[in-house]
C-alpha cells in the first residue's frame, strides 16, 4: 500500500543572517506515521521542524527559500493563511510549558480563541483531548486545579492535549521527553505511538534509542544537510551512508 505524504518539501534552504542552517533539503513526509529527526546539535533538525509551521517567521534574521507543500499547498506562498497553518500543525516543546491557569483552561484555550463559546461543546472538546493525551484518568477530579501543580510528565501530556484540542493534522515535537524521567518518557512514547493512527507526527530527538523505538521513518541531518532518510528499521540496522553509521554507532567526529 502506498502511503500518502502530508508534507512534500523541495529545495528548502534556511539562512540565519549570513549563516546557512539548512541546505537544499528535499524530503517527503508520510502522513499518519512517526518521523524522527536526528543529528548532532546545530545540524538543522529543529530549524527544519520549525519551517513546517512557519515558526521561523518569528526570527527577524531568518530567510527561507524553497517550498514546503502541506496537502499540496505551499505554506510559504504569499498570502498563505498562517493562523490556519498553525491550527493544522500543532507543536509541543522540549520543556513542558502549560499556561499558568487551570488544567481545563489550558486545554480550552485554543478552542476559545477559535470562538467556541458553548459550554457543553467546550467541555466535550477538553475531555476528548485529555483522553487522547492519556491524561484524563489522572486529572478528571481536579480539572480546576492549576496546571502547574502537575508533574513534569503530566504537564507534557497536558501540552499535547492542548495541541490536540485544536484538532490538528500534524504534531511537531521538539525533544518532548528530554526533560522527563524514564517512566514519564515511556508514557509519552506510548502515547505518540497511539496518536499516529490519527495524526502525522514529526519528532526531534537526541535519543537514538527513542527514534529506533517509536519512529517509522528517520531522517539524519548533519551540518544543514539531509544525509539519509528512510525506514527506521533499515537506517538503524544497515545505514546506507558512512556518516549515518558513524553517528548512530557513536563514532562521530
Amino acid at each position, binding site marked *: 500500500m502506498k502511503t500518502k505524504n502530508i508534507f512534500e518539501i523541495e529545495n528548502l534552504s534556511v539562512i540565519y543572517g549570513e549563516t546557512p542552517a539548512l541546505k537544499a533539503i528535499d524530503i517527503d513526509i508520510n502522513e499518519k506515521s512517526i518521523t524522527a529527526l536526528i543529528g548532532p546539535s546545530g545540524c538543522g533538525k529543529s530549524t527544519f521542524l520549525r519551517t513546517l509551521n512557519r515558526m521561523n517567521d518569528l526570527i527577524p534574521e531568518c530567510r527561507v527559500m524553497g517550498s514546503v507543500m502541506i496537502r499540496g499547498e505551499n505554506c510559504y506562498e504569499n498570502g498563505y493563511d498562517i493562523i490556519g497553518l498553525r491550527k493544522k500543525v500543532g507543536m509541543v516543546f522540549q520543556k513542558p510549558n502549560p499556561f499558568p491557569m487551570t488544567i481545563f483552561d489550558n486545554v480550552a484555550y485554543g478552542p476559545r480563541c477559535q470562538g467556541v463559546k458553548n459550554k457543553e461543546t467546550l467541555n466535550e472538546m477538553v475531555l476528548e483531548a485529555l483522553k487522547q493525551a492519556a491524561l484524563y484518568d489522572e486529572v478528571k477530579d481536579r480539572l480546576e486545579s492549576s496546571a502547574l501543580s502537575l508533574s513534569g510528565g503530566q504537564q507534557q501530556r497536558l501540552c499535547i492535549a492542548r495541541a490536540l484540542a485544536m484538532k490538528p493534522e500534524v504534531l511537531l515535537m521538539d525533544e518532548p521527553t528530554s526533560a522527563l524521567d524514564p517512566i514519564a518518557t515511556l508514557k509519552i512514547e506510548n502515547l505518540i505511538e497511539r496518536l499516529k493512527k490519527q495524526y502525522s507526527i514529526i519528532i526531534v530527538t537526541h535519543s537514538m*534509542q527513542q527514534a529506533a523505538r517509536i519512529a517509522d521513518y528517520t531522517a539524519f541531518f548533519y551540518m544543514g544537510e539531509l544525509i539519509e532518510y528512510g525506514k527506521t528499521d533499515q537506517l*538503524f540496522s544497515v545505514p546506507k551512508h558512512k556518516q549515518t553509521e558513524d553517528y548512530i*554507532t557513536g563514532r562521530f*567526529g
Partner: protein
Amino acid sequence: MNIRESFDISIQENQQLIVKMMKCIQEIYVAMFDVIKSNDLDGAERLINDDILVNEMEETINEQAYLVVLKQCPVASDLRKLVTSIKVANELERVADYAANIGVYIQKTTQNNESYRKLMLNYRQPLLDMFTVLIEAYNESDVKKAFKVCALDNDIDIIYEQQIKQFIAITREKTQIVAEEASRALLVIKQFERAGDHLTNIAEHIIFLRTGKHVTLN
C-alpha cells in the same frame, strides 16, 4: 577522539573470543584426523573431553555478547557483529561435537575399520582449509573469502557423494565386516559433511556481518 573506547574494546574482545574458538576447533580437527589415521584410543578419549572446553567457550561468548548488548545498546554494524558472534559460536560448537562423535566411533570400532579410515582421511585437507580461510574471512570481514569457504564445502560434498558408493562397494567385498561397522563408518562421513555445512553457515554470517544481507550458500 574515540568516544566509545570501552565499547570498542568489548567488541574487539568478542571478535578475539570467536577467532580463539575457531583456532581451537581447527586444532581439534587436526588431532581428530591424527586419531583416525593411527586408530589412537587415548587420542579418541581426548577428543571426547575437548568438547567440554568448546562448550565453555560458547557460553563465554554468549554471556559476553549479551552483556555488551545490554550495556551499550549497539546498532547497525555493531549490533550485527554481536548477534553474529552468538550464532557463529553456536555453529562452532556443533562442529566440535562432530569431533567428539568421531572419538566415540574410534573407541567403538577398533577392528576392521581400516579401509573406512583411509577414505575418511580424504576430508582432512578440505576441512582444515575451510577453517584457515574462515578465520581469515572473519578477521577481515572479507566477503570474497567467505565465498571461498563455500567453494571448499562443495569439494567436501563431492567427496561425500563419491564415498557413499565406495563404502557400499567395500561392504560388499568384505563380507566379514558386520553391518554395524559399515553403518557407523557411514555416519562418520556424514559428520564431515555436516561440519562443512556448519562452516559454510559461518561464512554466510560473515557476509551478513559485512553487508547486512542474508545469503544462502549451502
